[in-house]
């Protein structure tokens, strides 16, 4: 099946494909038949009112939550039954809405923790200073310098992450995710709680890291979706409503109804 798909499809490679995802928690259906295909290099938004199932969908797409039924393919691999850390090692990174950073560690240590999957040496290698230990360390230092520059965190290198301003923590969260040089970046409500200035900085950061990557964003802030995303999916009550360009999506009658709550009884 795999080889056939390769031989007949001249279309751009698929980064994330979800087919008919259903998720039930006991008697509650959180997601009911969501399908989407995100091609490589796309910046894709997922929007919807509170409780619509965005976060559940997001957790399923990046392998943390397992769906009740349906298939998820990330970078050509079926991740439906893979452990979350194993999914992360296929080139997928994510940020969290809350608990976004390692709060007790310095900015630089945060980046080191983010590099975990790329380290090859063990405790013995560390003791004897093996060649793989030195190579790992050198590669880490180089990557950390790039990421510090990219995220504008050079001056905060040795500060404890927990005391940084909120917007700065968010940039660090992206920095941690970038340490593994992921092919796909999932951002969970990155602009929630940010002020206008912080949001603008954040949009600029994501624009800078987007080339060569696929990015999926769950977001309430429509400005972020409009600025960054080529397409967006609207989820309402666990159902997919529409997938389209942001300006069209935001004019969709059901989206307006869902957001303004016109039908509330």
């Amino acid at each position, binding site marked *: 099946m795999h080889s056939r798909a390769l031989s007949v499809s001249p279309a751009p490679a698929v980064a994330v494909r979800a087919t008919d995802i259903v998720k039930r928690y006991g008697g509650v259906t959180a997601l009911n038949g969501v399908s989407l295909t995100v091609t490589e290099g796309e910046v894709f938004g997922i929007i919807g009112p509170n409780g619509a199932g965005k976060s559940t969908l997001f957790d399923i797409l990046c392998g*943390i939550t397992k769906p009740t039924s349906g298939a998820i393919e990330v970078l050509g691999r079926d991740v439906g039954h893979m452990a979350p*850390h194993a999914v*992360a090692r296929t080139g997928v990174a994510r940020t969290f809405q809350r*608990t976004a950073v*390692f*709060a007790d560690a310095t900015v630089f240590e945060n980046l080191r923790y*983010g590099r975990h999957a790329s380290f090859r040496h063990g*405790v013995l290698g560390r003791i004897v200073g093996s060649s793989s230990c030195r190579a790992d360390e050198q590669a880490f230092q180089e990557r950390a310098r790039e990421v510090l520059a990219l995220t504008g965190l050079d001056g905060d290198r040795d500060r404890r992450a927990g005391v940084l301003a909120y917007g700065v923590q968010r940039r660090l969260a992206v920095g941690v995710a970038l340490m593994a040089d992921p092919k796909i970046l999932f951002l969970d409500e990155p602009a929630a709680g940010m002020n206008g200035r912080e949001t603008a900085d954040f949009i600029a950061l994501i624009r800078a890291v987007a080339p060569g990557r696929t990015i999926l964003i769950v977001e309430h802030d429509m400005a972020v979706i409009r600025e960054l995303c080529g397409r967006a999916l609207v989820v309402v009550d666990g159902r997919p409503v529409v997938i389209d360009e942001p300006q069209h999506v935001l004019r969709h009658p059901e989206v307006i109804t869902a957001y303004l709550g016109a039908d509330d009884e």
Partner: protein
Amino acid sequence: MQPSSTSAAVLAAEPARDGVPAPAMRPGPTSLSIWLLLGAAIAAIAAFGFAVSDPFIVTLAGYTCAFALFALSINIMLGGIGEVPLGQCVFFGIGAYGVGIGMVKLGLPFELSVAAALVISVAAAAALGALTLRLTGAYFSIVSWGLSGVAMVAATNLESLTGGPLGLFGFSALSVGPVLLTDPQSYFFVTASLLVAAVLFLVAVRRSPFGAAMESVRQNRHLAQSVGVDVTRVRLKAFMLSAPLAALGGALCVPYTQIVTPEVFSVANTVDGLLMVLLGGSQLIVGPVIGAVIFSIIPHFLELDPNVRILIFSSAIIAIMMFAPGGLHQLAVALRQRLRRDGHA
């Protein structure tokens, strides 16, 4: 402050105030300062061992080093992955009974008994960890505490193997090669050397990717998972690393106690070790060693009644949790910073 909280004790042990810098935030010591500290430690050990003539004090110092190994083991769990391992005395007891059963029942030499106990402790940690480390926080603590109770009941009732409530005693030659552990000075040098070796090993662990993974799991397990850390595996490996250290501590206490009874499985042993960790600071690798020294030397010089000792240490722990949640060394760090600030002013 930390949403993925583990337990009240751990939260309290973490330096959470913004004003006081977390010990974990300071960059790790350089290799040079580690060698200097190592030299100082060796000099101090040699000076103490040769200069102090009171055999009781020297033996107590040896015992303190042995118990400090146990405290280090506890801190792999507490300072390492943020769990309070109340049942860690199981491995302490495996070490002690390893020596007891190996020497008294099987007639093995001390070294071989200890080696067997270490292997058994790792295997036990693998089995127990696979079952109990799915739990976190208070749930893990309580279940591991329960396991220590099971171990104590087993030790009390398996009389043919453990000697029952009376325990095992009458050891022949407690020696490591030609070094007789019943000689106070030799006992101290052996336990102190092993303690230094253990600390050096833990320094290497902390600076390795595995150490970084443990720290990331302690601070934010969900984020750690999302950067590719196999959280379950890291926790199990930490447990399996902590077990032989506890067993070594338990085994090296036998030359001091000269008897192994079911009491080695008492959770009171773990609590003593935990107090040492909290006294010295869970985020400092030698914190548990500092705590062990304070914990055993001070009561001796104050000639405290055991009950009064509990009262004083309990009060001390409360005071430390309130004023220096990172351990006593945090006071020194804060003092140094204040002096420096005043110097600039």
